[in-house]
């Protein structure tokens, strides 16, 4: 009769003979003692106990319910002596490889990638010269900074120097004699590396993850900044659009007296019909909404990284809207463009004068206010005034020609654009430009008018003055033609051009 003890190995219950228990207990105690300095000792013991439980379970049969001493001995033999597997080095394995079969090899230059920072060129060179690698690197950095050829040299060496791949090559690189002993130490080094590198490798992987997450964080910061920027841009555009579309502010600096015009008003002066105006407005609305929406969505996507089908559908919706808006705008543009297709010109002889001096007096009545102050600023080309259903434009062109006879001939010459020649001519004819003759003085306005219904169609007014030989032209009392020799180095041209600005200022070229 033997006494039995109830034990459990990692949760599996067993009945075990007392002597067998002693044996098992001693074994585990010994194992614990040996492993006490080992990290994860408890886990190793747990694994061993699990294995024991497994082996015991296999051994026990329905007829045999108690673990006996022989069974424990058997299991312990399978598991092995704790002294053997608990310790790192298996000294019994050591054999003497001391018979030196030396093979002196020529030292060769290899790249040492194991100690590399970039390509292992410096490390390899250090091996070859048997110098300290830090020293070589310092020289190299000096070469790069001061010499300039250090960098290309590095890349050339990187390309032409082979990498030390095999253990044999590594020994060649270090100039160690290749024999069994050195090979063995190299191989043992390699084996040790396998053991030790696992930890290093783990750390390296963690570091790499660290770098990656650092980059990710940086990318994130940039994408949030980008998102905020696009959101802000979108909001600014949104406010601008709201102000323009609903406030209809007068912002186009179109009027001579410093007043401004709204986009809608300006549109009606150019666009053929009210429908075009609607097209333009809707085109602008669609384009604005889609651009603003896309900016906002890009911003939201950049800041909050989430994916949603709503976002995708609204993206396509906005792109579609943008297409519609752009199409509307292009249609309006094309239609308006067509209305400028043909140029019509008319001219009319106004006066013929027999005189040597022709006076031209330009008066800008529109810029005279009630108190008699005169606007001094230049009325720039393209400035528009709308009054009494007529458009007022400023600036008259003058062209001088040589008269065929002894008389001054003054013509006015109107041009306008239209969808076809007839329309263009009609628009040109609608231009009203006042000139009056008083002795040898022509009184003229610096502006001309035409009906609002004609729209802005590049209407222009030109005075063509044919000057006889020895004839002189004075504008507002100053001789302007012929040009003074010192004013113009070249000889006077057959034709010359001048421009009277809205405020009566005279420019010639």
């Amino acid at each position, binding site marked *: 009769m033997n006494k039995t003890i109830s034990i459990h190995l990692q949760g599996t219950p067993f009945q075990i003979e007392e002597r067998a228990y002693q044996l098992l207990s001693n074994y585990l105690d010994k194992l614990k003692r040996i492993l006490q300095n080992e990290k994860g000792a408890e886990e190793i013991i747990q694994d061993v106990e699990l294995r024991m*439980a497994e082996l015991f379970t296999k051994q026990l049969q329905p007829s045999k319910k108690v673990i006996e001493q022989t069974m424990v001995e058997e299991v312990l033999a399978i598991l092995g002596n704790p002294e*053997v597997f608990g310790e790192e080095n298996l000294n019994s394995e050591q054999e003497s490889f001391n018979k030196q079969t030396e093979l002196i090899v020529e030292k060769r230059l290899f790249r040492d990638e194991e100690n590399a920072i970039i390509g292992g060129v410096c490390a390899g060179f250090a091996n070859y010269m048997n110098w300290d690698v830090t020293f070589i690197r310092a020289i190299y950095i000096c070469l790069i900074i001061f010499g300039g050829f250090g960098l290309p040299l590095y890349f050339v060496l990187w390309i032409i120097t082979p990498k030390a791949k095999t253990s044999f090559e590594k020994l060649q690189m270090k100039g160690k004699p290749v024999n069994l002993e050195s090979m063995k130490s190299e191989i043992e080094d390699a084996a040790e590396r396998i053991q030790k590198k696992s930890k290093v490798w783990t750390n390296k992987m963690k570091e790499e993850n660290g770098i990656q997450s650092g980059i990710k964080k940086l990318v994130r910061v940039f994408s949030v900044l980008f998102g905020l920027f696009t959101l802000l841009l979108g909001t600014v555009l949104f406010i601008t659009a709201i102000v323009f579309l609903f406030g209809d502010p007068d912002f186009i600096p179109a009027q001579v007296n410093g007043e401004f015009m709204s986009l809608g008003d300006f549109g009606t002066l150019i666009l053929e019909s009210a429908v075009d105006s609607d097209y333009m407005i809707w085109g602008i609305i669609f384009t604005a909404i889609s651009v603003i929406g896309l900016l906002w969505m890009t911003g939201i996507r950049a800041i909050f990284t989430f994916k949603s089908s709503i976002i995708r559908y609204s993206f396509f919706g906005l792109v579609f809207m943008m297409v519609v808006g752009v199409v509307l705008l292009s249609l309006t543009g094309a239609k308006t463009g067509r209305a400028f297709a043909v140029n019509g010109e008319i001219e009319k002889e106004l006066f013929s004068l027999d005189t040597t001096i022709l006076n031209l007096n330009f008066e800008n009545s529109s810029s005279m206010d009630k108190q008699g102050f005169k606007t001094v600023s230049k009325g720039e080309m393209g400035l528009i005034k709308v009054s009494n259903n007529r458009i007022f434009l400023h600036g008259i062109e003058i062209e001088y020609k040589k008269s065929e006879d002894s008389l001054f001939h003054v013509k006015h010459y109107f041009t306008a654009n239209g969808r076809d020649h007839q329309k263009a001519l009609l628009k040109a004819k609608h231009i009203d430009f006042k000139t009056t003759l008083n002795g040898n003085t022509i009184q003229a306005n610096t502006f001309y008018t035409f009906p609002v219904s004609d729209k802005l169609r590049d209407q222009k007014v030109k005075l063509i003055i044919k000057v006889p030989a020895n004839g002189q032209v004075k504008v507002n009392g100053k001789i302007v033609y012929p040009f003074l020799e010192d004013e113009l180095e070249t000889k006077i041209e057959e034709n010359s051009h001048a421009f009277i600005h809205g405020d009566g200022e005279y420019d010639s070229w």
Partner: protein
Amino acid sequence: MRKGILEYCILSILARGEAYPSEILEALKNAKLLVVEGTLYPLLTRLKNDELLSYRWEESNSGPPRKYYRITKIGSSFLSELDITWTELKQAVESLTKK
């Protein structure tokens, strides 16, 4: 030296799929790489602590619960590193022993 190779072998075995210690032992014994079983456990724990391996528990019908080991991502990359080292080692030894 042999231990490094054992680790290499364990990683290789687990690279084929997860296994619990008895299966790993079986494979190592068949290859005559292991004399005593006990050697395996410190290695497994060390590899696990180095995050080259991970494990999960699974109940077993025929005995105690089993610890199924599996190779981690880090383990896989390390293994491919070891493959290279091993190939180099083999070439080196062959270049010397052939003659």
